[in-house]
Structures are given as C-alpha cells and as structure tokens.
C-alpha cells in the first residue's frame, strides 16, 4: 500500500514537473498565450451565446428555463474544462507514436501516463473553466433552487466527479490511439459531442439517445441526473432517485476501467511497436 502511494505521488510529481515546463515554454510567446486563453474562453462562450440567442425568441427549451439551462451548461463546461486542462492533450499520443517521439517517453523512470497527460499542458484552458464557472455562478443565483450547504456540496462533488468522468473519456480516447491512431477524431464525438449534448436538457433528445449516454457511455452522470435532482425534476428515464447520487462511483469505476484499457494499449504498443 505504502509503495503504491509512493508511486502515485511520484507520478503526480512528474506530471506537475512536466506541466510546469510546458507552462514556461508557452510563456515565451506571451501575446499568443493571452490570445489563446481569451480564444479558449470565447470558444466555449459562443455555445452559450447561441443559447442566449435562442432564448431571445423563446421562454423555455424542452421545458427548461434559461437559468436552469445555465446550471446544466455551467456544470458540464466546468467539468469538461477541468478534464481538458488535466488530460486534454493525452490524445497527442497518436501523433507521438507516428513521429517516433513516444519512445523517448518510455526510457524515462517516470510513468508514461503521467508524461502523456502532461504533454503540451496548456494553461490557456483556464479560459474555458472560467467561462463555465461564470455561467454556473449565474445559474446558481438565478435558478429556482432553495440552496442549502448540503446542496452546494452536492453541486461541488458533481462538478469534480463530472471532471473525472470526462478524464476517463479522454483517457479512453488516448488509449484507443494505440490501435487506431488515424481514427482519433472519433474521440471528439464523445468529448466535444458529449459536452455539447449535456449543455441542453435531456428532455430535448430522443429517449434512446438518453439511454445511450446513461448506460453505455455514462455521461448523464456528469450533470444531467444530479442537476435534475437539484431542480427537483424527474429524469426522462424515470430512474430511481438514488441513481442521481452515483456520479462519484461511476467516475471511479470508469477511471479504473479506462486505466486498464490504457495499460492494454501500452502493452500492445510495446509488443507491436506501432
């Protein structure tokens, strides 16, 4: 146990070291960094602007008011932004395999995953988190929820668990590249596609699609189920109430599972060299 803990702390330390190097590297192009950070914030804000434009014509979408949608949107964007910051560049592993630089990661006394996760670490992604938090804050203030400390804690746990779920999706996408680097864009369906979908209420989508993101790729636990609970609404699948509390559990299971997939992928690389 102690040994395992030591190796984890070693991995985290290595991650922070490499991330720090990338931060310093990007700071050599300061103007570009500022532009990219603002751009990152705007990129995710535009989705919300589109929602605002929609609400200039309507009062409710799928039965949800603007503050309610802001809550959904803010929660998922913050979670996604955190995951993107922590692990968003792991997908570059495919590029590294192709150009041969992946090998240089394997001859260092540091877990490969820590090195891959920190690859091209980009502080500009704070822009997206900031934007998500701003909308979330507005949603919290404006939505019709009687906030208690317990509910606030629940929201916080939800955002963190949501980030963990998105991390698992990013990790799976990275591992997938050991087998099919050319198909890396498929991962975008689940990451960017997922975050786009979760910005809208589940009532908007076909029942089967909602089932898919609940039971197959459990993105519904990122924000849909917990936020519906906060808003006191039933989910379209009429699941028992305790299911909406399972976010953290789902996150841990998913991370464990994708961790195994990553190891299998790395093993496959080490045996085939491609």
């Amino acid at each position, binding site marked *: 146990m102690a040994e395992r803990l030591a190796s984890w702390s070693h991995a985290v330390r290595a991650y922070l070291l490499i991330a720090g190097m990338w931060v310093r590297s990007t700071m050599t192009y300061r103007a570009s960094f500022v532009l990219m950070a603002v751009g*990152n914030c705007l990129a995710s804000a535009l989705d919300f602007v*589109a929602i605002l434009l929609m609400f200039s*014509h309507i*009062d409710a979408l799928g039965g949800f008011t603007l503050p309610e949608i802001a809550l959904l949107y803010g929660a998922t964007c913050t979670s996604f932004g955190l995951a993107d910051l922590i692990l968003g560049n792991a997908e570059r592993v495919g590029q590294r395999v192709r150009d041969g630089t992946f090998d240089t990661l394997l001859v260092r006394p540091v877990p490969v995953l820590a090195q891959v996760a920190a690859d091209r670490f980009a502080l500009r992604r704070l822009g997206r988190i900031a934007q998500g938090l701003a909308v979330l804050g507005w949603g919290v203030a404006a939505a019709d929820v009687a906030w208690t400390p317990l509910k606030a804690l629940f929201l916080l746990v939800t955002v963190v668990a949501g980030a963990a779920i998105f991390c698992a999706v990013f990790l799976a996408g990275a591992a997938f590249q050991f087998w099919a680097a*050319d198909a890396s864009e498929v991962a*975008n*369906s689940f990451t960017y596609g997922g975050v*786009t979908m979760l910005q809208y209420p589940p009532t908007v989508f076909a029942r089967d699609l909602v089932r898919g993101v609940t039971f197959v790729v459990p993105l519904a636990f990122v924000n849909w189920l917990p936020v519906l609970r906060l808003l006191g609404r039933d989910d379209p699948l009429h699941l028992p109430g305790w299911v909406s509390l399972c976010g953290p559990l789902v996150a841990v299971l998913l991370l464990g599972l994708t961790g195994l997939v990553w190891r299998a992928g790395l093993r496959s690389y080490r045996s085939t060299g491609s």
Partner: protein
Amino acid sequence: MRLYAAVAVSGFRRHATYRVATAAGVFTNTVFGFILAYTFIALWDERPHLGGYDQGQALTFVWVGQALLAAVSLMGGGFEQELQERIRNGDIAVDLYRPADLQLWWLSADLGRAGFQLLGRGVVPLAAGALCFELTLPTAPLRWLLFLCAVTLAVVVGFALRYLMALGAFWLLDNAGVLMVGQLLSLFFSGMLLPLTVFPGTFGDVAQALPWAAVFQVPVDVLLGRYAGTGLAGALGFQAGWAALLLALGRLTQARATRKAVVQGG
C-alpha cells in the same frame, strides 16, 4: 492553368489517402448532426417558422452544416497550419521563387482538398440525416447545380480569409492565436451554430453582411430555395464580391510580407 489544375488534383488525392481519418470524421459529423438536430427540433417546436424556416428546413440546415463543415473548413484544418509553418521556418522563401503564384498555388490545393471533403465527408452525413429526419432537400437538378456554385464560392471566401490570417505569421513569431480567433469568428458568424436569420435585429443584419455569411449561410439558403431571380444573382454576387475583395487583400498583404522577408533575408 494546367499547373494549377495539377495542384488541385494532387490536393484531392492527398486527402483521399486518409481513408480511416475520413471515416472517423464522418462518424463525428453524424454524431454532432444528431445532437444539433434534436436541439433544433426543440427550438422550432417552441417557435415554428423561427428565422423564416420551417422545421424541415431547420433540420436541413443542421445536416447540410455537418456535410459542409470539412469542405469549407469552418473549424480550420485546411492548409493554413502548413502555410504558417512554412513561413515560420523560412521554407516560404523557396515557394516565392517558384515560377507559380503563391496565392493561386495554395488556392488550387485547397480547392482540391475541398472537392474531396465535399464527397468524402459530405455525402454520408447528409444521407444519414435524410434517413433519420425529414429534410427538405430540393429535387430540381438546377438547384443542386446552383448550390454547388455557391459552395465553390464559399470555399474560395473561406480560403481567402484563412490565407490572410496565416500571413500573420510573417509578423508574429507564434501565429496560433490568430488562427484560433479566426476559427471562432468563422464558426459563429457563418451561421453554423445558429442560422444568422435567427440573430436579433441589427446584430443579425450586420452578421449577414460579413464575409463569413458567404462561407456557410448563403450556400445553405441557396439550397433551401430562399433566393430566386435577381435575389439569387445578388446572393452569388455577394459571395463573389467578398471572394474578390479578400483575395485582393491577401495579395496586398503578401506583397508587403514578401518585401519584409526580402529585407530580413528570409
């Protein structure tokens, strides 16, 4: 002229070799098509005839959007990264001495790429959308022909915009930020996220006059039959006008950049 045709063909071929990546892109476009289609259905359920579209037209808007996304490079991914890199590492000097026009060269290559992506990444998502939703696609061949013209002009306008942005690398050591902002502008003001006709008041009017409207909104409206007679000529003229203006601006910038490069010795 023969030279540029050959460049275009090689641009087409080059992208045709990425089969798996193309399939992956088609998959992602289709997934996004589904997600956006449902949000549009919800929106048009609340407000039928929003922006002058009925629900079938709105859904057509979504799926044509996914079909054109790669061809008109709304999310970038065309030639601009490569051009920027060549400027950054100085290889551009070699290009400038070639007996071919730099802008025309890249334009031909980009047209070739767009040609492939229109087929490779456009047909399947649109077919998937037409199978699963009720789209209002025209049956008259002439309308499709006009649509093709509008798409070609859209590709040229999109090219001219990105060419201008990539030239920024002559002045900035790291031009990635400029390209990113350019991409955001194109995504939002092309009507890809939401039709520009839904944008309110003056903001909407201004958005419809900007060059990005020529990249996406106009071709879709041509396909949906929103223009007829002189209106149609006006729409294509609007695209052609922006194309000419932006290409000219690109040439001007290129000339200044070249002078600068020559003075600095590459």
